[in-house]
């Protein structure tokens, strides 16, 4: 058997992993050089982004569409999600620059963990094999567990890490069981092969149960109701920059592989009863989960008094909105349509990520040491005392709410539109629920604005100094929110432009492997 090795196709992953190691080693030999390590990490991410764009340009030409025996693919799902991951990590690094300084966090290890987490996310998007997805997921989760508990002397952080660890591993076990059963039912772990085998599975019943178990596992990771119980506690307890990262990155990554497994792996094959039943079941389950997620997330967010907790519930709600797109992708009739909806979901996650990271950047700055100030009351009347911070935060809130001109609006339209278009009553109902929920969400997003601008501050307030790194993040996020909100066309077209591995057969021999390891094998 040939390893079908192709280093070019995993170049972004390799670059990030190598830079993770470099950062770690650099910190070993030159300790306490926080700024340099941050800069090196960002440089690495930049290189990875270049590699990714290179893949984008040449995927299907000089870079094969799939390699490593079909374990890695370059399709729109992978590429569009991957670029979000790189952005998320880069922004997180910039956000944490302040925090690392403040909390005396071991910078080298922290950044390298972040980079390894990114490797995991990238793999989750690019993996076309359950093994790769599982390993990517674990790489991501394990590093996130550590990062959640990074403030070791703080009880809340410890507690968050422990809860996250226990529940996350619990979910992983379910996911793994699902994978095992799917492997058993089809005899393969490759998603493309599973998709083919679904019609003709050895044990159709196991396929269904495996799918259900995987649903539970992924459901935990994207924090949808009823598997969301860990989210608020963990988000509140984890250090703020990490919370931002968790709400943006791992969630998007889980969405990427969730969608790959379900949308691409369990497709509807005409005339095959098993496939139809399976497809129906997961669509129904996901729709119900989407409804619950949106509704619960928004309703629970209303009563929160802690900003981080509110953002946690809001992130649950947003997962619900994105799931609407997910369901629509599952119900898409043609491959083109499916690609389009997947691109829309990728866009949604990108828009959410940028907005959310911007918000968390501000929360980080305001929180001060040990996350002391994260209650709504702490934001009382800071509106015009720290106008830059509070206006940026308001813009992010409005984008999360989905007000026009912001990224949140376009992304919602992009996700809801195809759901509407499919015309099935279920999806229309989903969209209606989503719209109603958007209206509900206005209350708590506005509340933060109201608190900041319309209330008067009673306690003293010192305008925090905005460090350069954070200012960069804010400028980037605000511009990003508006850019995605107004000139989204380019991004959407980019997301849709990459080749679709699933239209070309994955088992096709790779075109011109650029680095041929087969010769090295004797």
């Amino acid at each position, binding site marked *: 058997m040939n390893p079908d090795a192709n280093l070019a196709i995993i170049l972004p992953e390799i670059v990030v992993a190598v830079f993770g190691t470099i950062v770690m080693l650099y910190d070993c030999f030159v300790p306490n050089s926080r700024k340099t390590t941050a800069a090196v990490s960002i440089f690495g991410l930049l290189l990875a982004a270049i590699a990714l764009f290179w893949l984008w340009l040449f995927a299907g030409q000089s870079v094969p569409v799939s390699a490593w025996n079909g374990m890695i693919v370059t399709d729109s799902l992978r590429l569009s999600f991957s670029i979000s991951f790189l952005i998320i990590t880069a922004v997180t690094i910039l956000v944490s620059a302040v925090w690392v300084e403040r909390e005396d966090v071991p910078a080298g290890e922290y950044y390298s963990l972040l980079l390894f987490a990114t490797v995991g996310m990238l793999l989750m998007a690019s993996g076309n094999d*359950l*093994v790769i997805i*599982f*390993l990517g997921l*674990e790489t991501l989760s*394990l590093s996130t*567990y*550590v990062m959640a*508990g990074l403030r*070791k*002397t*703080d*009880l*809340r952080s*410890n*507690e*968050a*890490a*422990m*809860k996250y*660890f*226990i529940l996350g*591993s*619990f979910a*992983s*076990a*379910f996911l*793994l*069981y699902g*994978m*095992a*059963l799917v*492997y*058993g039912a089809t*005899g*393969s*772990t490759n998603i493309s092969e599973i998709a083919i085998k679904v019609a003709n599975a050895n044990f159709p019943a196991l396929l269904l149960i495996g799918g259900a178990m995987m649903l539970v596992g992924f459901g935990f990771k994207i924090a949808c109701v009823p598997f969301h119980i860990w989210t*608020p*506690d963990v988000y*509140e*307890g984890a250090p703020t920059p990490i919370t931002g990262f968790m709400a943006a990155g791992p969630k998007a990554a889980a969405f990427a592989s969730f969608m790959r497994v379900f949308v691409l792996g369990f497709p509807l094959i005409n005339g095959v009863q098993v496939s139809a039943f399976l497809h129906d079941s997961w669509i129904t389950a996901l729709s119900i989960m989407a409804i619950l997620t949106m509704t619960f997330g928004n309703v629970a967010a209303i009563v929160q008094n802690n900003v981080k907790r509110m953002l946690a519930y809001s992130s649950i709600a947003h997962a619900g909105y994105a799931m609407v797109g997910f369901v629509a992708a599952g119900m898409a009739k043609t491959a083109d349509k499916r690609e389009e909806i997947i691109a829309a979901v990728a866009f949604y996650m990108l828009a959410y990520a940028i907005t959310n990271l911007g918000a968390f950047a501000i929360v980080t700055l305001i929180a001060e040491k040990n996350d002391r100030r994260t209650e709504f009351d702490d934001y009382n009347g800071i509106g015009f005392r720290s106008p830059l911070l509070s206006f940026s935060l308001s813009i992010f809130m409005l984008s999360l709410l989905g007000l026009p001109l912001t990224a949140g609006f376009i992304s919602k339209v992009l996700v809801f539109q195809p759901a509407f278009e499919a015309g099935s009553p279920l999806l229309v109902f989903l969209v209606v629920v989503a719209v109603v929920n958007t209206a509900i969400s206005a209350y708590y997003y506005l509340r933060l604005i109201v608190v900041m601008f319309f209330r008067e501050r009673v306690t003293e307030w010192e305008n925090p100094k905005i460090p350069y790194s954070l200012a960069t993040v804010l400028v980037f996020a605000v511009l990003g929110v508006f850019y995605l909100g107004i000139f989204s066309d380019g991004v959407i077209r980019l997301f849709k432009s990459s080749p679709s591995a699933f239209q070309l057969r994955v088992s096709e021999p790779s075109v011109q492997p650029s680095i041929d390891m087969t010769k090295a094998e004797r």
Partner: protein
Amino acid sequence: MEPTLASYLALSGILFTIGAVGVIFKRNAIGMFMCIELMLNAVNITFVGFSRFYNDATGQLFVFMVMSVAAAEAAIGLGIIIAFFRNRISVDVDDASILKN
């Protein structure tokens, strides 16, 4: 009556159930962690069972990966538990309740 694939899967399912229930019943973090390890092991039986069934190395390779992951998880999980213990002098999950309304 030779043990067939079904018997191995049943064993796997029972162990998985015990593990899952254990995670919920156990009150200390290490106990929970052990239950999760049990769940992973139960899954491994499924993998190996199918691997034997198809005479295909994939399942066993997967198990190998699961073991690496379990090792990594143990290292990190126990690290987290120790960090928690250092601050709280308890690994009882009931004690972990600052983060509640």
